[in-house]
């Protein structure tokens, strides 16, 4: 047991704690959007902590080498690049399929934006019909 192994173990522990929080958030939050917030995000820090933690932990053992750390960092970077895209795709799909926001939600600027856009298109269409008549 040395300092590097101890730091790695602490990081893995923190990571698993955030995994636990994201699972708890999945149960506690009221609607799909807030569940996305807690579950996908805490999982990011959880995975980061576990991966980088494993890399540092391995440095402190007798079989470890620097390759452990660099590889786990590359994995973490690719995770950081891809995770938000799937989160964005999921939440956008949820909104487009018409899942309502929780009743306690305070504001929905996206609906206003979509309605303004629709209205712009709808107003143009009847005007054209009027011209034809």
């Amino acid at each position: 047991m040395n300092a590097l192994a101890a730091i790695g173990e602490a990081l893995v522990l923190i990571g698993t704690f955030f995994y636990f929080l994201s699972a708890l958030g999945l149960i506690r939050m009221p609607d799909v959007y807030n569940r996305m917030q807690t579950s996908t995000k805490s999982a990011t820090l959880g995975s980061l902590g576990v991966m980088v933690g494993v890399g540092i932990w391995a440095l402190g053992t007798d079989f470890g080498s620097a390759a452990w750390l660099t590889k786990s960092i590359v994995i973490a970077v690719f995770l950081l690049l891809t995770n938000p895209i799937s989160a964005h795709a999921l939440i956008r799909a949820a909104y487009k399929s018409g899942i309502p926001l929780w009743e306690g939600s305070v504001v929905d600027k996206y609906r206003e934006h979509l309605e303004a856009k629709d209205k712009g298109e709808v107003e143009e269409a009847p005007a054209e019909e009027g011209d034809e008549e």
Partner: protein
Amino acid sequence: MGEASKISRYLYTVIVLFLIWLFLTASLDPQELAFGLILSLIVAALTYEIFTTNGLANLHPRRVAYAIAYVPYFLWAMIMANLDVAYRVLHPKRPINPGIVECKTVLKNEVGKLALANSITLTPGTITLDIDGDKYFIHWIDVKDDSVEGASKNITEPFEKFLKVIFG
């Protein structure tokens, strides 16, 4: 910013691929380096057209310095926001105040907008729902200010000052 020359884009792709190779092998053995270089040259020839539009301009020292400074800044923001969300999950009363707000960005570059959207999504408490031109629609777990300016100040501006330089 217009497209850089083909050679500049090709070289930039080779450099990035070779860096990834270095990290994955974590070895300075000449055989490994030579083989990695050959593979980088081949893969870059096939992919540089979709990989980058700016080419070597991305490696301007000022941009690299800001990109390196952005990493700890972003990690810190992410950890703080994670603790904030953790508090909301653990608090018995579940103190959330969610809503979808609109933000405006000053970024013009498409890649910069993508980086900003990803940064926002990775920061817990905010998810980018959609982007339309310079308008970001963001689901925010604790709406402090639902005006466009207030939300922009809270969510996008801390990242923008870095991304403005990194992506031009």
